[in-house]
């Protein structure tokens, strides 16, 4: 075996720095029970988005349907990726921001959630799906896809809390919310939000 060298010191423990650079936000919004999108449909729709989208650069669609518990159909863009995702054995739309967003962390979170919800709405309204697909807005998974800047720690959670509270207050109009985090240090920083009540994506977009 190759003998690994020791890990270099990683940045990421300074929560102030982290909150100034909160980027690479991922947002997953799950399909409603009874809704489903086939990988063939997703492939067709995402390819159409490449030509129909004017406000960002979308590049390619990758099919990973041979790996059942993973990204199924991936729309790769320069600024962001959009994915029909089943990584946690539950289908949903995963929005993954890659390029920096502008504004303070609250504004960045708001932009990421807004874009994810808009993508869900676009899927719900896709003619190929004949209006049969709905997303459930009351559950959102947040992931910060940057272990170097935002480790999966209590400190990160504490630093993120006020920004998330501000966002969720607007989004769910004061409805009670709970947040769970998988604390496994090997995982990226993550928070699963559950809001009390039922929220569709159109209503949530109106709240932002």
């Amino acid at each position, binding site marked *: 075996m190759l003998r690994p060298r020791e890990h270099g010191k990683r940045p990421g423990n300074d929560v102030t720095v982290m909150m100034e650079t909160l980027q690479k936000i991922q947002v997953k919004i799950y399909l409603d029970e009874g809704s489903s999108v086939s990988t063939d449909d997703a492939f067709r729709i995402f390819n159409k988005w490449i030509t129909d989208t004017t406000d960002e650069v979308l590049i390619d669609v*990758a099919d990973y349907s*041979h790996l059942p518990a993973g*990204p199924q159909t991936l729309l790769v863009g320069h600024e962001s990726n959009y994915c029909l995702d089943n990584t946690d054995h539950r289908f949903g739309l995963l929005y993954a921001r890659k390029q920096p967003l502008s504004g303070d962390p609250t504004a960045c979170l708001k932009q990421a959630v807004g874009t994810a919800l808009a993508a869900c709405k676009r899927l719900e309204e896709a003619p190929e799906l004949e209006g049969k697909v709905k997303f459930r807005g009351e559950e959102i998974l947040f992931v910060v896809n940057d272990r170097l800047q935002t480790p999966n720690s209590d400190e990160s959670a504490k630093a993120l809390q006020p920004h998330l509270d501000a966002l969720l207050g607007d989004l769910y109009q004061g409805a009670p919310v709970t947040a769970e985090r998988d604390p496994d240090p090997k995982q990226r920083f993550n928070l699963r939000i559950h809001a009390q009540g039922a929220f569709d994506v159109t209503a949530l977009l109106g709240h932002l």
Partner: protein
Amino acid sequence: MVRIKIPFGGLNTEQMDLLADLGEEYSDEIIHVTTRQDVQLHYLHIDDAVDLMRRLAAVGITTREACGNSVRNVTACPLSGVCHTESFDVTPYANAFAQFFLGHPDVQDFGRKFKSAFSGCKQEACGLTNMHDLGAIAVTRTIDGVEQRGFELYVGGGLGAVPHEAKLFDEFVTQEELLPVSQAIARVFARLGEKANRARARIKFLVAKLGIEEFKRLVAEERQTMPFDPRWTSYLDDLHGFDEEALKPGQALNGSDVAEGFAAWRETNVYPQRQPGYAVAAITLPLGDITSSQLRALSDVCGRYVKDTVRTTVEQNLVLRWVSESDLPALYSELDDLGLALPGASTIFDVTACPGTDTCKLGIASSRGLAGELRTRLAESAHTLDEGVKGLRIKISGCFNSCGQHHAADIGFYGVSRKINGITVPHFQVVIGGKWKENAGSFGLAVGAVPSKNIPLVVTRLTEAFVTQRQGDESFHAFIDRTGKRAIKEMLDDLTAVPTYEEDSSYYHDWGDTREFTIGDMGKGECAGEVVPLAQFELTACEREAFEAQILLDESEFEEAYSSAYWAMLHAAKALVKMQWLDVPEDEGVIVKEFTERFVETELFFDPFAKDKFARYLLRMHQTGTNGHSHDAAHRAVEETQLFIEAAYRCYDRVSTESAQATT
């Protein structure tokens, strides 16, 4: 895409964890194992490259020279050290070779890449030395009662458009001479190998041009001039530094309860080690892919059963070595929970494919799409498949460059396209007669192009013919040999027909892609690592056609050989015309006329000495037609075609260079 070198495929759990992290943070959450034991991540941003490389370096991994014209990843049998048939463990030698040549000044001036492989024995497939630029097979000899270790060394093998079987360089290179002799080979290649024409720049062309005896003489001469380097032998003091340890004592299976599916998995995915009580467990990766989540979880599983003894394989799988046999049922259950307990490793179900049109712009047809379809269909019929069929290998490349190693498969395919009524239809050439065993002991040949849609039927028809017509214990390779390629071709003839778009539009779509097929996005090759212009790409295709003409000649099909040679030449002329007129039609009269006006009359296609000699080959054949030719005429046509293509390459180089100079 970033290609990450994994010398001899060796991975530890810390490296697996990091690869999983990088897949998530910079790529698309997919880690892809390649046919040369590398790892590839796709869809990366160049901005992330620095962080990615720094993090790889922190766990002892480099991407340096994973691409480019240098010594690529050094591959080795994944069973090295635990195999029943090996002479000795090649792991420390493969590692020493990789470390010695990494960044070495003598390997920085190659005209093309240099692939090397190590195998512990001659009879199995694991090292695939026959298709490498340099292949080393472990051998021993006894002199004065003392056993010596050494290597049977091969050079000049390679797949690509026109495959070359490696030539025996030396029956026994001592372990002390392995690195210096290899270095001398590298120096001769760097000095005399082609540089300008990258399609002729692999060492196989140099060996073919010089002849193996002259090449050996030059290497021996070079060896005498080289200054001593202590690294040639210093690693020999630490050969046991690579000895692996087991996490648990080796114990046989104790008859405890096993999960459903365990028996089928064990039959194909477990290899009993030479060391009693231990086994190698293979993880079948569909299309070589594993998700970040799976890889991280697998790393945890490894920590419970083995000690950092994981390797990637050239069949795009992973193997866990030193598993106590008594742990196999528990390991199976844990793998099953992760979706990693697929049976069928190294069988017909385990279809190998290059990235193809998914991410490589040289790809013509969807190799991964076809592989996925074949896997699904074969899995559905798994319980009824004949045992002889289960052991076959299917390998698929998206183009003729053979990154999917289609030449070495029992049944191989490579992507091509055909224009049907003005619409491009995805096809695959069917390649048969290859031999995976004996380190890729022989290479198959194309028997004809079949629409992608019909390829699953090709597999069904070939395997059914094998089952019903084989004689005794005849192997598939022997069956193909006895039946003959012509009969095989006839067997598939009806599958070559393409219905009109109106009759069945599905023929005009590639597997795994709901869009209408196009080759309009071809251009830069993923594996080539640099721009391959369209004209050069098409000239390489012409070489393939010329090669097929040679085969027809060997089969005494003189008219067909003559005709194939003529069309290869015509397509080479067309490739040149396309530099000026992209939409030149597939009409021989138009091609000849345009070629004459644009390249002959302008003297662009003139050789400094032979003048228009090569152009006249084409003009004469166009005038005489392709019917009624004897062996001599066909033979001459094949020879002339090769010369014409060479001249076309030179013309292309000259014109493109002058064009580049004019714009600077």
